[in-house]
């Protein structure tokens, strides 16, 4: 049986991306500034990592308006949710496989 580390996702492996995915996994969709605040990162860092997640097909970006103000909402795609779940399962397996 292979070590659970082999199940870790290459894209989710990066801590900031993992945090963004964790936040998005807890909701259907989040406003950009909410993700920034809960993950505690800057706008530019969030944009950078959101782009990487989008490139991997894990994240969907939706642009709209609230009144006259432009807003951006982020959500995980089905693939993104599956990848996050698999990554979390692998982390749990690593913890459980550790000698007591």
């Amino acid at each position: 049986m292979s070590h659970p580390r082999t199940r870790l996702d290459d894209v989710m492996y990066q801590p900031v991306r993992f945090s963004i995915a964790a936040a998005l996994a807890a909701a259907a969709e989040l406003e950009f500034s909410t993700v920034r605040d809960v993950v505690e990162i800057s706008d530019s860092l969030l944009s950078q990592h959101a782009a990487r997640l989008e490139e991997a097909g894990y994240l969907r970006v939706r642009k709209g308006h609230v009144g006259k103000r432009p807003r951006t909402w982020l959500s995980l795609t089905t693939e993104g949710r599956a990848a996050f779940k698999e990554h979390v399962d692998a982390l749990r397996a690593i913890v459980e496989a550790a000698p007591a």
Partner: protein
Amino acid sequence: MEDPVTAAAMLVHARRVQERTVKAGPREWLVQMAWAVWVLVFVPPFDFISGNIWGPVVLASSAAGTIICWRYYIRGYGRVHPLTPKQWRVWLWWSPWYAAWIVFANVFKGDIPVAATIAAVASAAPLLGYALRSRRRSARQ
């Protein structure tokens, strides 16, 4: 990341981020609780105060409550679209229940001196219970 300590720390961190995410969204239980308390505060005085005097107060406060709730939902859902289905269904069963008790209070106000109080307690109790259960559930998430 073979280190189980790092893996455990990542899991704890993810949990905290998810808790913060849920807290950033609208709290449905808070709205349910607020309306249950509104019923308990504003309906019983009909037993002691004339409807002509108390009615406009109730109408004004319910209009204000509706506007506040509306703004709260717009703001909350603008930030977070929750995973769990919106709990609007609670209003589908509670509204006719509340209306039935208000009809009861009107029909029996001559026979039962505390008809409005009975109606307030009976109609608010299930909503309050539902709100408290939702609150406990969201705290456990």
